[in-house]
């Protein structure tokens, strides 16, 4: 059976020094990177035949719906489940995402992505979850547009690829533009659009984006983030002017 070579950046804990370890793994057709990591988990032996600790990484749905297994594969940010081995050059180099705190090996702490959603009030303000009858009609054209923004899986790829997103910057990450754009389009969501625009004009918001456009290129769900950035840039300007004259 053919084998592939994997070179993995390892780190035993957040305070430990990183090191590289190589593995040889048997390969089969349409095998993906998660399956290769699973082989190592089942038989944790490095390419020198020495027993080692299994590689730690996050995965859950294995169909690119949950965002868990995002990592750097040959230097590019991708989901390990939907990246097929046959499309990769060897040795396959796996590294944790560089913009997040490493917990262990390829596992990083991305909970701050969800904290950002608190800062931008990413919810529709409804009266309650009891029955209040149907919502407003939405027409197909608008639904199509909203749907393209609703596919975010909070994988953090847009943050990883962004030159502005790092430990020293308060920038919340490009995915928030898509979220705000989506909520501000919804018939009930737009009632509180000013709250989100205010957040966008605050710390870590739109002023920290330099329009590099890398985010859209790496988004696994092809969310049109640059369109949202352009539109929200204009809307925050209009909002500032209208506030001035109020």
């Amino acid at each position, binding site marked *: 059976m053919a084998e592939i070579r994997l070179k993995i950046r390892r780190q035993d804990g957040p305070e430990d020094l990183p090191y590289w370890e190589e593995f040889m793994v048997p390969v089969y057709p349409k*095998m993906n990177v998660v399956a290769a990591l699973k082989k190592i988990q089942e038989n944790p032996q490095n390419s020198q035949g020495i027993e080692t600790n299994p590689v730690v990484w996050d995965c*859950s749905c294995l*169909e690119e719906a949950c965002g868990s297994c995002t990592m750097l594969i040959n230097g590019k940010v991708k989901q390990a489940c939907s990246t097929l081995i046959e499309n990769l050059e060897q040795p396959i180099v796996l590294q944790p995402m560089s913009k997040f705190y490493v917990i262990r090996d390829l596992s990083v702490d*991305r*909970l701050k992505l969800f904290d950002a959603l608190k800062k931008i009030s990413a919810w529709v303000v409804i009266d309650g979850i009891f029955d209040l009858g149907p919502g407003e009609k939405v027409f197909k054209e608008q639904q*199509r547009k909203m749907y393209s923004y*609703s596919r975010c899986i909070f994988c953090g790829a847009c943050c990883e690829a962004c030159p502005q997103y790092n430990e020293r910057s308060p920038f919340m990450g490009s995915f928030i533009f898509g979220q705000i754009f989506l909520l501000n389009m919804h018939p009930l969501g737009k009632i509180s659009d000013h709250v989100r625009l205010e957040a966008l004009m605050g710390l870590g918001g739109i002023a920290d984006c330099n329009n590099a456009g890398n985010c859209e290129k790496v988004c696994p769900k092809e969310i049109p983030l640059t369109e949202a950035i352009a539109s929200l840039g204009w809307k925050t300007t209009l909002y500032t002017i209208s506030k001035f004259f109020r």
Partner: protein
Amino acid sequence: MTRPKIIIVGGGLSGLMTALKAVEQGAEVAIFSTVPVRRSHSVCAEGGINAALNTKGQDDSVSQHIYDTIYGGDFLAHQSPVEKMCKAAPAIIHMFDRMGVCFSRTNEGFIDQRLFGGVSKKRTCYGGATTGQQLMAALDEQVRRSEVAGDIVKFENWEFGSLVLNDEGVCVGITAIDKVTLKVRGFAADAVVICSGGYGEVFGAATSSKHCTGSAAMQVYKQGATFANPEFIQIHPTTIPGYDKMRLVTEGVRGDGGRIWVLRDGKPWYFLEEWYPEYGNLVPRDIASRAIWKVVNEMNLGVGGSKSVYLDITHLSKDLLKDNLAAVVDTYLKFVGEDPREVPMQVYPAVHYTMGGLWVDDNHQTTIQGVFAAGECDFQYHGANRLGGNSLLSAVYSGMIAGVSAANYVTGKEVASDMSVINFVETECGMQEAFNKKIMLMNGNENPHKLKNELSECLNNSAFILRYDNQLKDADQKILQLKERFQNAAMLDKIGFANQELFFMRTLFHQFDLAQLIVRAALNREESRGAHFKPEKPNRDDKKWLNVTKVSYNENEPEFDYKEKVEIEKIKPVERKY
């Protein structure tokens, strides 16, 4: 007045819905989830959620929805809970609409509905082919709003350890383990709701996420909760075969016109359309899976001799594919590397949903006082076979009921003093710590992953689409041997930090008992009903088997009980044929 303190185990659709409903009743809530809640398995649901909105001019009605659900479940579901769920469905859709869910729309801007399996009316609301993700987004956002308001606290990347029971057997909290530091901590609560999802992962090759292991429900079972109908496992007819995972292709594909065929005598043969002229490609899942099994394994007509049949969408319009099925096209392109708009997809049945689970009453309370269960981890609503589009509905609806019941339960009882609870919490923490320590020190010569693979293989060979008594008996023996061999397993990871093997081993420890329940319940039930099919006893036996399989834990042998009759007062059982 002090607020009721409610702990919810699991942050998928049912967990989040329970949380919101409990908060609405005045409770304060803590949610424990083994993954960040937004990465729960609910996000994988594709095709849609059922509600008789009757927006398609087809005279659909709530009573028709109830009938289809009971009939589709081969009369094993209690009828009043199903009735209440179907009645609540339209209001649930409206709630999600107001929350901002991107439902697909009709030309006039109404919520669109597609056709699904085992029904004759378009009743399934959907958001493209990512409906679960859309509904999760809405509830996740509302929960975050409650978090900011101080009503909900989330513990993400925490594994459920065990229930804390006082000396009267009443639940007073839980223990949980931080998956990073591996520290065990106890948390007091007035009520606990288990929303931990299904147990498909025990079969290995399934459409489940990796954490749908059933371990939390099994822990609760071992602490005294009754389990019900473990033998009823739904096999989805159309999944993309993979060594690591069977990837779902939604029933919505066939609802939107996708056709299943194989080559026979050099020509496409649409066997479902020929065998089931009324429902065609949309016969219920158990029946479609058995038909595919027959064509592939008995008639040897699998595509190119492989274990697969064609699922064809090449004839569908570009607009329909883009609006309704873009996610299906994308998944197939990425994982198989072929374009399903050009070449028919190749699919095969796989384990998809578990109808069985923790036994609950109509208020979703388990047999342990103070412990409730909702979502796929309970046994209610689907009987012997679940209809497509009813899982999202039952997840949400059961959460609504459980959230209210848990809060009401607390309001009606005397509050225990903190001091008395602390002793029970500390004792239970000590037991969990000792258990973890024991696992960390395991140093035998059995590889635990190989044991797991053998366990899954054993279930797939005995309790899949066709069930034969002799194979089930062999499986039962094999499971006992595997459980024995586990005593001699090795802990492969030696680091006491963010150690995933610890949680794998804890789960596997429970899965031997889970597999035993599935196999023994299948062995006991001497009939065929819904997803439970025995070729040697191909008929349903209402005289003897119109009852719930209930099983309770005993250290030596699980104790089965068939005294609970299925409630059939509203719709009289008739033969189920499509």
